[in-house]
């Protein structure tokens, strides 16, 4: 019945809980933390956060300690004098009306400053990246380079990236926690967001506006690379698919409808590009990705495929007539614009907007039954099944996968 002991014990318990979880928060096991910003934008916010946290903590400590004091000090005891009966005290009340006002003023001033700083126009000569949200994947366009890619964002370190945010369908929100605040992708509206990555690394990005069934599976990766690697990467991405280099001449501008800004790859340059970038594709090879940036979601138990090895060449033939071409761009081969651009599919580390490793087995399974791999996926299943006797058999699936993965 001595609830003030309880209260004290509780306060201690709560405190330890805070410390435990707090430590967890500060340790290096928080790859998506918002508290170790890697851009000027992120730091502006972080400074503000420190102010907020400081004053918040002050208020918290004042209120709670006074509460605990009162609770302990004024518990009803035997033979305790009858309470004094103040019904109010104007000076006091004015005091604790003004005190918060002052604190809020201290918070408000830097807040407004930061608002105008972070929402100013992006500096000249910054890299423009168009971010287009789709249910449930990301399209990234580099108009200045005529590059179109999906779900993996490349940024040069030290150069301001100015994001132009649009959406194909519903609302989404673009967020790389370590690089700064988020901004929504609003239908019939263009939003802007810019920051300057300060160190080369790979960060996770997510969609943070609920956008339907697979909102949780709308992820992407951000590779911040040295400028030269970035240049190399863009040249490479601009070039036709490596595997299809020769045939690409047949349909030079095929990719155009998908990507207005894309100048079709100058064929001459296509072969030379390749050796130069061959071993050193400016990607983090999947196996060398930090664990948090690797994609290794489990495959649904009921979904499997026999272990057949696919043949890229057969896959290539198959692809030309496959339904895939209705939705996907492979520069010089197919021009569908509904799904992600596959021109350099093989150079990506992950599959399905950051869900699975981009390897033969997963790609084959994905083609077999995408909705099973990713709830609500707009890509229909193509594998042979009771429902779809005409669907591809495991061999064909493997061939297609082999071909797509060969598109470095």
């Amino acid at each position, binding site marked *: 019945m001595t*609830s003030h002991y309880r209260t004290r014990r*509780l306060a201690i318990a*709560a405190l330890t809980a*805070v410390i435990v*979880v707090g430590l967890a928060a500060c340790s290096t*096991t*928080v*790859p998506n933390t918002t*508290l170790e910003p890697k851009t000027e934008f992120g730091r502006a916010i972080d400074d*503000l*956060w420190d102010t907020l946290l400081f004053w*918040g903590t002050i208020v*918290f400590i004042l*209120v709670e300690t*006074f*509460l605990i004091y009162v*609770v302990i000090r*004024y*518990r*009803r005891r035997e033979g305790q004098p009858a*309470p004094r*009966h103040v019904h*109010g*005290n104007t000076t006091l009340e004015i005091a*604790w*009306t003004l005190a*918060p006002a002052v604190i*809020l003023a201290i*918070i*408000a001033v830097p*807040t407004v400053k*930061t*608002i*105008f700083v*972070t*929402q100013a126009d992006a500096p000249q000569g910054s890299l423009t990246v168009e971010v287009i949200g789709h249910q449930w994947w990301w399209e990234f366009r580099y108009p200045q380079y005529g590059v179109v890619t999906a779900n993996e964002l490349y940024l040069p370190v030290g150069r301001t990236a100015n994001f132009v945010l649009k959406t194909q369908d*519903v*609302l989404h*929100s673009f967020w790389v926690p*370590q690089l*700064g*605040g*988020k*901004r*929504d992708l609003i*239908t019939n*509206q263009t*939003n*802007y967001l810019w920051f300057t990555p300060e160190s080369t690394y790979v960060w*996770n990005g997510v*969609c*943070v506006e609920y956008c*339907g069934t697979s*909102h*949780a599976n709308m992820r992407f990766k951000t590779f911040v690379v040295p400028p030269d690697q970035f240049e190399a990467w863009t040249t490479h991405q601009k070039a036709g698919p490596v595997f299809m280099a020769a045939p690409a001449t047949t349909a030079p501008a095929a990719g155009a409808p998908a990507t207005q800004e894309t100048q079709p790859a100058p064929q001459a340059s296509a072969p030379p590009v390749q050796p130069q970038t061959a071993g050193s594709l400016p990607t983090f090879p999947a196996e060398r990705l930090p664990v*948090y940036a690797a994609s*290794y*979601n489990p495959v649904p138990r009921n979904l499997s495929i026999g272990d057949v090895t696919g043949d890229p060449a057969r896959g290539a033939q198959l692809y030309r007539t496959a339904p895939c071409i209705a939705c996907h761009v492979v520069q010089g081969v197919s021009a569908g614009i509904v799904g992600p651009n596959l021109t350099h599919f093989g150079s990506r580390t992950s599959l399905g907007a950051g869900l699975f490793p981009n390897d033969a087995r997963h790609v084959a399974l994905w083609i077999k039954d995408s909705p099973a791999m990713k*709830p*609500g996926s707009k890509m229909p299943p193509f594998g042979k099944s009771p429902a779809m006797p005409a669907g591809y058999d495991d061999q064909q699936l493997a061939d297609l996968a082999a071909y797509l993965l060969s598109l470095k």
Partner: protein
Amino acid sequence: MATTVAAPPRYAVPHTKYERGLWSWLATVDHKKIGQLYLYTALAFFLIGGLEALIIRQQLKGPNGTLVSAETYNQLFTMHGTTMIFLVIMPMGAAFFNYLIPLQIGARDVAFPRLNAFSYWVFLLGALFMNAGWLFGAAPDGGWFGYAPLTTRQFSPGLNIDFWLIGLQILGLSSLAAGFNFVTTIINLRAPGMHFMRMPIFTWMSFVTQFLLILAFPIITVAVTFLMLDRFFGTNFYTITAGADPLLWQHLFWLFGHPEVYILILPAFGLVSEVLPVFSRKPLFGYPVMVYSGILIGFLGFGVWAHHMFAVGMGPIADSVFGVTTMLIAIPTGVKIFNWLATMHGGSLRFTTPMLFAVGLIALFTIGGISGIMHSSPPADLQQTDTYFIVAHFHYVLFGGSMMGIFAGTYFFFPKITGRLMDERLGKIHFWLTFVGMNLTFFPMHFAGLNGMPRRIYQYQANQGWDLENLVSTWGAYILTLATLVFVWNFVKSRRSGAVAGRDPWGGATVEWSIPSPPPEYNYAVIPTITSRYPLWDAKSPELTADVPHTPEGEKRTDVSVGGKETHASFKGPSDTRMASEVAHPSAHELGIAMPTATIKPLLASIGLTVMFIGLILKNNANYQSLWLPIILSGVAFFVVSLYAWLLSPLEPEHH
């Protein structure tokens, strides 16, 4: 004009078939019965909403949870949020409005008893409609604020959103009707001498809440109507191909949505302000300021809605304005917190269960408020919005604020409602489990959010730095489940066999404690004349109110009837061992008090209304191509007929 029964006229005997059994509930127009209906319904939905939360937590206990599918999960969090807000806390508020306001202002019923019944039945049917989606495996899945265009037919072709929209529409009608009713009641049925500044603080906060209701709900009604027309009749309000602006929905929704959150908290504040003085044996510190701060909170509440939209790109000016107006709300709210502390300071605190929950609210709501201020700074919010940091904030204000206040109120007024006390031991267990479980569940969410965990995700990958926080949260939820079961057990048990309370088990200060528990149908045999804010303390222990300005010159101190000895300060258990209901009370009829006649018509009207909406939802179902319109029309007809029957029949038995 103090009393109303000068030369009582004689009245016809009320229809007895309405007096007991099921009928007495279906046909009741007694604010006390309706209040209880609200209470039980809300408790039931709290269990359901909690169960949904429990499944959510189980799914998120570890990485890549597979308990439920993505589709189910989206339905779960949508219904959890919608249920907790519209089917738990709002009806809990309504329960206390109904039961307490007439008692506290010394009235015999609300201004429009039949409209009051109508409000409840509409609410109940709307709630069932909203949840009917589960039966068709198509529960709403658009989130509790259903952003367009995701909720348009193009992106949500199923029935899910239809259930949500129409359910919301029906619930809105209920809230509006209740709002008009209580505004009128509080303005017009205060007992003689109860000036506004003598009104019990709970009634004051409810008064403010009613204005928030009648001013905020028309806006959501419009927003929802647009979406309904879009989905059922092909208009373009949110059709993106027609150039619609999705922000229209967001602005209209939050224009309602923010006042809504104060609709959720102000009644809780009111309840706590009733509990603290009684168990501190001190008058409420700074009553007038408490009143003004409540009004100010309600008023400011209309000027901050866009703080839910800092990420949509409103531009620096709008962001700054809404950021600052939002911060301002900390001032009146702070005043409340500090005045509560000052009320306890120097008092003689008795830690009964209601008191524990009241103190719990102060401790926990402050945390939620502070995180609220952290959101209110737009750039900072860009890192917080749509993460678990927000989820932490609103559970601290909603659970740590509203629910704590409601629990305090439930334990405090349970004896008045049932005539029996709730078990103190179980009550304390309930409190400590809740307090610990609540913090274990929601405090780690702050860290999960700051570590970049988005909300509304049914799965997350391991090694994102979120595993520990989520594990702790889920264990917290287990403890909360335990706590809730203890509460339910206590509630059921005490209703049957709790200690008999008598009129005034706590030594209360306001008039509702002067009448038997449970009160007779007419509440007050003689309408009391109110001479101060604490009429009972004036009568029983004047020393407590010596310092309170009251009884202006000219008005003599008439003492209100107070229930005998058991109302003495120190709590030694009730001495009156008989239930009020066992004591023979003169019936309203004998006293010649005119009470409204029980009638089923409000229920019928609400059924007509619902049938109408059922017809609408059938519109897009192939099997009902030819039927939906007739159903709607018959619903309308039924509604209109019942309405006329209701309006043209007198409220009370005719004189003769």
